[in-house]
């Protein structure tokens, strides 16, 4: 299958710290590509430089559908078809759930829709992520799990072809993690390509087609998730003692 996203040798430094140090990867159309690694290994920085929010890479190339995007402004990257969620909840707190998601349909990829169509897409998107009920509640009043889903809905409303999810399961309970896992599968079935950063390993292992592990800003290994977690280097750098597939303590 064609590569949707190709990252070539990207570098991002903060002073003396090389947060992302020559990372290359390619993500195939339709797959769920998992990214693991200890805290500070450069996972979120990698998402930051792909989306340009809040900064670009110092060097290296990023191709989306063959088009270089490493210098595009963030809103243009979004409109090209890449959406992301953040590790911590970022929504527009005083706006309703409905308005939060509707802004995505208005400003994202789906320009030129009629008002009625925007409203329909907004409703469908909210229901798709499992946020039924009252869509007029302010986003500041909902639970962490609902906020995570709202963030995914806002990202989806921009009609992305590539969705970058940054720790969608952090801070969630086990049943909520199971629901998130099911949601990611449903998302994947719609054809959207997903790159998933996650600390919750069971989630990564069940939904990812391929898994990459970062350490100190570099790619430690990449491959089939079941193979990757057996890799000695990975166990040493990240997983602690062998067989510990529970929630990461790092």
């Amino acid at each position: 299958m064609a590569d949707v996203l190709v990252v070539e040798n990207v570098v991002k430094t903060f002073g003396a710290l090389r947060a992302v140090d020559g990372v290359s990867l390619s993500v195939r159309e339709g797959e769920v590509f998992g990214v693991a690694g200890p805290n500070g290994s450069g996972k979120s920085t990698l998402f930051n430089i792909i989306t340009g929010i809040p900064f670009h890479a110092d060097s290296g190339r990023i191709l989306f559908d063959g088009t270089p995007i490493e210098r595009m402004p963030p809103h243009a990257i979004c409109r090209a078809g890449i959406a992301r969620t953040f590790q911590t909840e970022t929504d527009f707190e005083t706006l309703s759930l409905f308005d939060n998601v509707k802004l995505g349909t208005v400003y994202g990829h789906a320009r030129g829709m009629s008002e009625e169509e925007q409203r329909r897409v907004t409703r469908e998107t909210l229901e798709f992520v499992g946020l039924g009920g009252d869509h007029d509640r302010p986003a500041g009043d909902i639970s962490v799990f609902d906020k995570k889903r709202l963030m995914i809905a806002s990202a989806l409303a921009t009609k992305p072809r590539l969705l970058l999810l940054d720790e969608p399961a952090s801070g969630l309970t086990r049943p909520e993690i199971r629901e998130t896992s099911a949601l990611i599968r449903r998302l994947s079935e719609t054809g959207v390509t997903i790159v998933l950063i996650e600390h919750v390993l069971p989630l990564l292992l069940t939904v990812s087609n391929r898994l990459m592990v970062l350490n100190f800003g570099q790619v430690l290994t990449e491959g089939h998730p079941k193979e990757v977690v057996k890799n000695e280097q990975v166990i040493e750098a990240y997983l602690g003692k062998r067989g510990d597939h529970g929630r990461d303590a790092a």
Partner: protein
Amino acid sequence: MTVDVPAIIVSGVVLASLYAMMATGLALVWNTLGIFNFAHGIFMTLGAYIAWTISDEAGLGWGLAGGFAIAVATMIGGGLATYGLLVKPFQNRKDIVLVVVMTTLAGSFFLENTGRLIWGPRLKQLQRVVEGTVQPLGVSISAHELVIIISTPLILLALYAFLRWTRTGSAIRAIAQNQDSALLIGINVPRLYALSFALSAGLAGLAGALLGGIRFIVPNMGSEPLLKAFIVVIFGGLGSLGGTIVGAYVIGLIESTSTYFVGIYWTNAVMFAIFIFILIFRPTGLFGRN
């Protein structure tokens, strides 16, 4: 002693209207960009000077409507230039709030002295929008002041409607709440920053052109309204545009009451005392969010 309450109210509302227009622009930029624009006062001054140059017989003599329109339009351009030159280059710095205080202050001094060179030290006054006097609540004021009293809420209502019901307005509100998320859903944040700056400067220019009809136009005429606008924004509550507007009317009325009882020289001291006293009990201002 009989207290002339209607006079206090009417003169307070005139002041409040100007403060509201100034402070709303200042608050719009604060809410959207998270910075205070110290060049906001100079937009007011330049608005007045430009309106004078265009409209007055000693200038181009193109009439008051032309003067107002060109003053506002030039200030919108001035706002865009100020954003592009004094704010945008520092946008990604962590200490942007501090840096922008300095760059906008510097810009403000530069423009104030440029104004002094262009227009000279002689006092100027704009023609009034409407001549004659009127007597609301039995208080005799110029018809021009009544125009200010009536037009301010209408202008602010138009701004509210723009922010509340238009596509661009809701995007500006979204940025004010969360810049990263706004970028994430494809909003062109730098462009809307520029727009907020332009709107804010246009409002200040309009306030200046209106003030030029009741006060003399001098190079530092924007300084005091800017100071008051800061007080209003903080008093009303950072982050709340409605609070800013209410704050403007409260401050205007405090000022007129204080002027009536203790005279103009003590008014600032009284106002700051009340301001500090209220902030002790409500540190976030009247309607501010934590």
